[in-house]
C-alpha cells in the first residue's frame, strides 16, 4: 500500500488563520485543497511537507458570485464547476474543461483552484521515490539534472491543467491572498515557463478565486488530447475564445495551448493578427492552424510521441477554432474531447 508520509494537519476556518499558520510553519508547510494532486505526490515523496494546512473548511473559498462577470471560489470542486448552470451557460468551455479533468470520483474532490495550480508533470518526475532514485534524481526533486534534455538548464516538466488554458483564454483573473494582503492578477500572469517554479503565486499565498469577465458574446471551445476518454491528464489542450460580430467578422480572438510547455502557452497575438477584421472561413482556420501551432514544443515526457503531439497541436487548433467559430471541424468528433 502506498502511504502518505507523516505530517501535522491543521484545518483553519478563515483565510487569515490559514495565512497565519503558514507564517508560523514556514517552508515546511503546504496548503492543500482537494489533495488529488498533492497526496499522490506525497506518497511518491515528490513533496514532503511536514505540515498541511487544509483549506476545505474556509467558506470564503467556496463561493460563486455573480457580478460583473462571475467569480468562482477556488475550492469549488471540478464536478461543481462542470455542472454549474451559470458556468455552463456563460463559460461552456470552462465547464467542459473541468468535466474532462481526470475521472468522476477525482473531480468530486479535486478543486478548480487545485487544477489551476496543478503541479507540472513529467514521466521522469511523476514516479515513486525508488524509481527516481534508481535513475538518479532529477532537478525538480532531489537532483540536479533534467532527464528530458540533459543539457537543459531548467526543468522541462509540462503544464498539465485543463482549466488554466480556458481561464486565460477567457481573460480571467485570479485573486491571491498572502501575508501582505490580497492581489488580483490576470490568470496568464500566474504562470512561468519553468517546470519547477511554474507559478508566480508564492508558496505563502492562497488562490482565493477566479474571476471571469462577462461573456459579451464571446464564443469559445476547449479541445483536449489524451489516450483515453477519462483519467488521463491532457497531453495537449487548446482553448479558444472568439468575439464575433453579428456579420461574422472577428473582432477579437484569444487562444491558449495547454501541455506544450511548462506554462499554458498564450498564442493570442498570432491569432489576433490573422483573425481580427476577418470573416472566419475553413481556409482561414487552416491558415491559422498552420501558424499558431509552431510555438508548441512538446517534449518526450508525456504520453504519446512528441512529434505526434506537435502535429496534433495544428489539428486541434483547427478543431477548436472551427468549433468556436461555428464551422464544421476538419477533425472528426471521435478525436474531440
Amino acid at each position: 500500500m502506498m502511504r502518505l508520509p507523516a505530517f501535522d494537519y491543521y484545518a483553519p476556518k478563515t483565510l487569515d488563520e490559514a495565512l497565519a499558520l503558514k507564517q508560523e510553519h514556514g517552508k515546511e508547510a503546504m496548503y492543500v485543497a482537494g489533495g488529488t494532486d498533492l497526496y499522490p505526490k506525497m506518497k511518491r515523496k515528490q513533496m514532503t511537507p511536514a505540515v498541511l494546512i487544509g483549506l476545505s473548511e474556509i467558506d470564503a473559498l467556496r463561493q460563486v458570485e455573480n457580478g460583473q462577470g462571475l467569480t468562482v471560489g477556488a475550492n469549488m470542486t471540478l464536478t461543481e464547476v462542470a455542472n454549474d448552470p451559470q458556468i455552463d451557460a456563460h463559460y461552456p468551455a470552462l465547464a467542459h474543461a473541468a468535466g474532462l479533468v481526470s475521472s468522476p470520483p477525482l473531480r468530486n474532490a479535486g478543486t478548480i483552484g487545485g487544477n489551476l495550480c496543478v503541479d507540472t508533470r513529467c514521466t521522469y518526475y511523476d514516479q515513486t521515490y525508488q524509481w527516481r532514485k534508481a535513475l538518479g534524481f532529477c532537478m525538480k526533486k532531489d537532483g540536479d539534472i533534467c532527464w528530458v534534455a540533459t543539457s537543459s538548464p531548467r526543468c522541462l516538466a509540462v503544464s498539465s491543467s485543463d482549466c488554466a488554458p480556458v481561464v486565460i483564454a477567457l481573460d480571467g483573473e485570479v485573486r491571491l491572498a498572502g501575508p501582505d494582503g490580497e492581489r488580483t492578477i490576470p490568470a496568464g500572469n500566474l504562470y512561468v515557463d519553468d517546470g519547477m517554479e511554474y507559478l508566480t503565486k508564492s508558496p505563502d499565498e492562497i488562490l482565493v478565486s477566479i474571476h471571469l469577465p462577462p461573456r459579451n458574446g464571446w464564443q469559445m471551445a476547449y479541445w483536449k488530447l489524451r489516450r483515453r476518454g477519462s483519467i488521463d491528464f491532457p497531453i495537449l489542450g487548446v482553448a479558444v475564445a472568439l468575439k464575433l460580430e453579428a456579420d461574422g467578422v472577428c473582432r477579437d480572438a484569444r487562444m491558449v495551448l495547454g501541455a506544450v510547455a511548462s506554462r499554458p502557452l498564450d498564442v493570442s497575438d498570432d491569432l489576433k493578427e490573422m483573425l481580427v477584421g476577418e470573416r472566419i472561413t475553413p481556409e482561414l482556420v487552416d491558415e491559422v492552424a498552420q501558424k499558431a501551432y509552431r510555438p508548441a514544443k512538446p517534449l518526450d515526457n508525456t504520453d504519446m510521441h512528441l512529434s505526434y503531439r506537435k502535429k496534433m497541436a495544428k489539428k486541434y487548433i483547427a478543431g477548436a477554432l472551427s468549433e468556436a467559430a461555428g464551422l464544421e471541424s476538419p477533425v472528426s468528433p471521435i478525436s474531440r474531447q
Partner: protein
Amino acid sequence: MTMKSLLRLTVNGETHELYTAVHKTLLEVLREDLQLTGTKHGCELGECGTCTVLVDGQPILSCLALPVEMQGREIVTVEGLAEQGEPHPLQTAFAELGAAQCGYCIPGMLLSAKALLDEESAPDRRQIQEALAGNLCRCTGYVKILEAVELAAERMSEAASP
C-alpha cells in the same frame, strides 16, 4: 512524533470514534482501523477508482481522502449498501448478470453506480459509461456492468412507481 487525532467518523450510519495518525488515508482507516475490508485498492494514487466510497452521496477516492476532513459527513462503503440484510438492487443486478467476475473492482463500481442512480433514476448507456469512467475493470469488458446498472435502474423505477 506522529500527530494523531481523535476522529468521529460516520460510516454506513454508525459512528466510530478512533484515535489515529492524521496522515492515514480514509482507505487505510476503513480497512485497517475499522476492518471494513470491502473497500479495495488498486494503486492508492487516485488512478484506478477501486477504492471509491461515497461521502455525502458523492463518489470519492478513499486513497486520496483524509479522515480528518470527513468528520460530520456520511461515509458509505460497500458494506453499507444493503439495508436490513436486503441487498441493494444494484448488488442483486450485478450478481445476477455476472457483472462481478473477480469482483475486486466491484465495491467501487457499485458505489459510483449508486451515486449515479441516486441522481438520475433512468440514465442512458452513455451516462452510465461516463459515471463509471473512473473505475477500471480488467475482467468484464464493462458490458455486464453497464447492463446491470440499467437493470437495477429499471427495477428501482418499477419499485418506486405505485
